[in-house]
């Protein structure tokens, strides 16, 4: 560890903390993780009066109490369970809503760490007629107080000077202010235990730990809290309850009583409180029963369009570049297993990772703009009624909608949901949304089993009806899965909505850019490596082992062709031989053998071993089913869902007993399987990244595979019973 002093940057959500962090550290910020938990820990160098300090971002929080490990991250950043505490803390407070922001500031002052309160958005506050007496507030709180505007970069030098002074403070920490009556007795009792756990800490830190314990413990999901601390808090709370006292309320009310005193002495506000004319006018339209819903639908439509249509040319460019890199490698290197590994494993794997970047970047541009502007909170406000029906939060809407495009950015978008269980339910259910990678499967199967001009009732085309059924099934499955998880594996207290509606503001390009870059970067480094590894493994399973006699036979055929033919005719013949060799080798590969092994399992779904191989290959990504089927039927891996030869081959494919393999019923069963199955290693990788453990992604694969199996089984067997074929 370096001797560089550390400064923590804390604040409520929407206090302008990120803007200030970016303004102070410039482009020199690094993004890491808080240990054991997937919350970004951003840190960067900041020069205060010639000294370079390490500034790090504390997750936005309204309080230093915590129920979940996620909330505890902010507490631990200020009061670490072990190791050194930050040398100073900056609390960013919105000067236009100071009372609530001072609630966090008060708790941080109480810890005894040298504290600087940065009164942000002071320009807005002044316009609203709010005046803050910095000196009065400083003398009442015991913290240094600086007025700033992070957006306009005003007051930042004064902030640096105040932090430098704070860092020079040797004996800071006033003695903690006593509480009133029995509450003081309660806290002192907890302090006796807390000081035993942290013998070297000053009285103020011990008091802060004790009030934290009193307010946080009891109904929490925290881990690693010493049993002695839990015991003493449980005892104190039980005793208070017997006498009809509510210690939570007593403690919080005592804090707000102090804040009210500070505000009386230091803040002058217009009669009736500060109001925001612009926000009021915008909200009158954007949350209006008719206009509001129309605006909501419009914003969501544009987001949807961006994910589907705007990202498409970029994805095409990436795919072309990957293809070109593969072609170049094949042309440059001698043919052999190493070149195959490079082309089909490594380059394809890198392509599989990079291909997600356009959608991730676009979605996060939208989310950052919506969040910074204040509209994302209104999205939750407008649609919460619908989401609460299945036990979800209003903020789950954008991730779920994004799931229609791609689950990978959608899972990453669940970060906007604060509560861990709400987040997990959303990210585990949304892979059931019918993403765009399922479309090629539907298109191919529908084209193979339903005649193009078949109509239902003379009007609706059969294909359209089937496609609609798949989308409806996916939405139904997503919402049901969320509702079921809420009642089973992720049961908990009824999720509540306590949502701040921040004032509307113009989003800063710099904040948006840095948020998007951060998301893309963590995806590439964390999820990307997993995706690359699985691509290589799947390639190996599909390619090895090979059969010597088959290789020898095709080498012979190639030699014959080279002698008999030349020019274009030879090229064509060699290409055909490659495709047929791949077909002939496949049954010998690990995936081919696995396909045979699972045939008895998937036969009741209407599938045979060849579809089984397709299912194994498409674990990489759903659309890979199409190219795997191309290999299985000896047409080549380059075929897409529009391929006429592939469609023809599938339409004529027969089982061992001579019956058609792809019938309307088995095709329908296959589509139902793909709606419900977790055929996507990238979703697996990104859920691992976002949940911080392998437990939840593996759970997702297990429940979705079971659901897909049962769904396809019921479809096929039920269909047979009803007389369909």
């Amino acid at each position, binding site marked *: 560890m370096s001797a560089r002093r550390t400064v923590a940057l804390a604040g409520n959500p929407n206090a302008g903390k990120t803007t200030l962090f970016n303004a102070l550290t410039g482009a020199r910020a690094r993004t890491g993780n808080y240990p054991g938990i997937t919350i970004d820990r951003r840190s960067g160098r900041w020069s205060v009066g010639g000294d370079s300090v390490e500034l790090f971002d504390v997750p936005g929080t309204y309080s230093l109490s915590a129920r979940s490990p996620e909330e505890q991250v902010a507490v631990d950043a200020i009061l670490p369970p072990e190791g050194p505490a930050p040398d100073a803390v900056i609390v960013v407070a919105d000067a236009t809503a100071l009372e609530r922001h001072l609630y966090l500031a008060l708790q941080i002052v109480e810890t005894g760490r040298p504290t600087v309160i940065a009164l942000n958005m002071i320009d807005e506050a002044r316009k609203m007629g709010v005046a803050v007496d910095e000196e009065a507030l400083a003398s009442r709180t015991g913290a240094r107080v600086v007025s700033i505007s992070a957006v306009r970069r005003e007051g930042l030098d004064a902030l640096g000077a105040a932090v430098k002074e704070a860092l020079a403070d040797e004996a800071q920490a006033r003695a903690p202010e006593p509480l009133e009556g029995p509450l003081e007795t309660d806290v002192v009792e907890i302090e006796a235990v807390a000081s035993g756990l942290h013998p070297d800490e000053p009285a103020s830190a011990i008091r802060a730990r004790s009030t934290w314990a009193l307010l946080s413990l009891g109904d929490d999901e925290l881990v690693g809290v010493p049993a002695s601390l839990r015991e003493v808090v449980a005892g104190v709370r039980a005793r208070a309850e017997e006498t009809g006292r509510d210690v939570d309320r007593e403690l919080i009310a005592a804090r707000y009583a102090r804040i009210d005193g500070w505000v009386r002495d230091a803040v002058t506000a217009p009669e009736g409180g*500060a109001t925001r004319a612009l926000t009021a006018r915008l909200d009158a339209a954007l*949350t209006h029963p*008719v206009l509001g819903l129309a605006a909501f639908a419009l914003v969501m439509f544009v987001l949807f369009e961006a994910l589907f249509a705007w990202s498409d040319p970029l994805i095409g460019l990436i795919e072309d570049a990957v293809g070109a890199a593969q072609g170049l490698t094949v042309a440059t290197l001698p043919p052999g297993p190493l070149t195959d590994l490079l082309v089909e494993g490594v380059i394809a794997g890198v392509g599989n990772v990079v291909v997600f970047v356009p959608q991730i970047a676009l979605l996060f541009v939208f989310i950052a703009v919506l969040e910074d502007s204040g509209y994302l909170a209104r999205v939750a406000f407008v649609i*919460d009624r619908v989401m*609460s029906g299945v036990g979800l939060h209003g903020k789950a809407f954008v991730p779920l909608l994004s799931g229609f495009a791609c689950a990978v950015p959608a899972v990453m978008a669940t970060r906007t949901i604060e509560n861990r269980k709400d987040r997990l339910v959303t990210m585990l259910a949304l892979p059931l949304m019918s993403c765009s990678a399922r479309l090629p499967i539907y298109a191919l199967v529908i084209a193979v089993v339903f005649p193009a001009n078949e109509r239902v009732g003379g009007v609706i085309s059969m294909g359209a009806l089937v496609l609609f059924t798949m989308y409806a099934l996916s939405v139904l499955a997503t919402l049901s899965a969320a509702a079921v998880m809420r009642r089973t594996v992720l049961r908990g207290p*009824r999720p509540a909505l306590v949502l701040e509606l921040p004032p509307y503001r113009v989003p800063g390009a710099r904040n948006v850019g840095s948020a998007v870059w951060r998301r893309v970067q963590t995806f590439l480094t964390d999820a990307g490596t997993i995706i690359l590894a699985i691509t290589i493994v799947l390639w190996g399973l599909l390619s090895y082992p090979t059969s010597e006699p088959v290789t020898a036979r095709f080498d012979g055929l190639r030699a014959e062709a080279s002698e008999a033919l030349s020019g274009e005719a030879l090229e064509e013949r060699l290409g055909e031989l490659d495709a047929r060799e791949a077909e002939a080798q496949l049954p010998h590969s690990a995936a081919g053998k696995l396909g045979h092994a699972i045939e008895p399992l998937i036969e009741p779904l209407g599938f045979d071993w060849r579809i089984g191989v397709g299912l194994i290959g498409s674990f990489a990504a759903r659309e890979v089913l199409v190219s795997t089927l191309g290999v299985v039927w000896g047409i080549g891996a380059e075929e897409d869902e529009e391929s006429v030869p592939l469609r023809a081959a599938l339409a004529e494919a027969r089982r061992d007993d001579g019956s058609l393999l792809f019938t309307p019923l088995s095709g329908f069963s296959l589509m139902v399987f793909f709606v419900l199955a977790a055929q996507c290693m990238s979703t697996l990788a990104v859920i691992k990244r976002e949940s911080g453990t392998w437990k939840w992604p593996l759970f997702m694969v297990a429940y979705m595979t079971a659901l897909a199996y049962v769904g396809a089984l019921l479809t096929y067997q039920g269909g047979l019973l009803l007389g369909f074929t």
Partner: protein
Amino acid sequence: MSDEGPTLADLSVGAEATVVDVRGPRAVSRRLMEMGVLPGTRVKVVRVAPLGDPIELRVRSYSLSIRRQEAAGIALADVRERS
């Protein structure tokens, strides 16, 4: 429970009142109190979401949205209808 006074869920848009009690599951009541909704605090109902739930409150110079279910746990006194 039903014979008690008005709750925040009963307040019409534009009305103001003073909080006298914050009830409900501990996680929710504690969060509400930490966000500044305490006995003695003045709250105003600003609007209702387009689909009828949740509602938007003005409290301590900021806007807070909660569902009717949570609002029903906030007991009020001194109600003043929209002036």
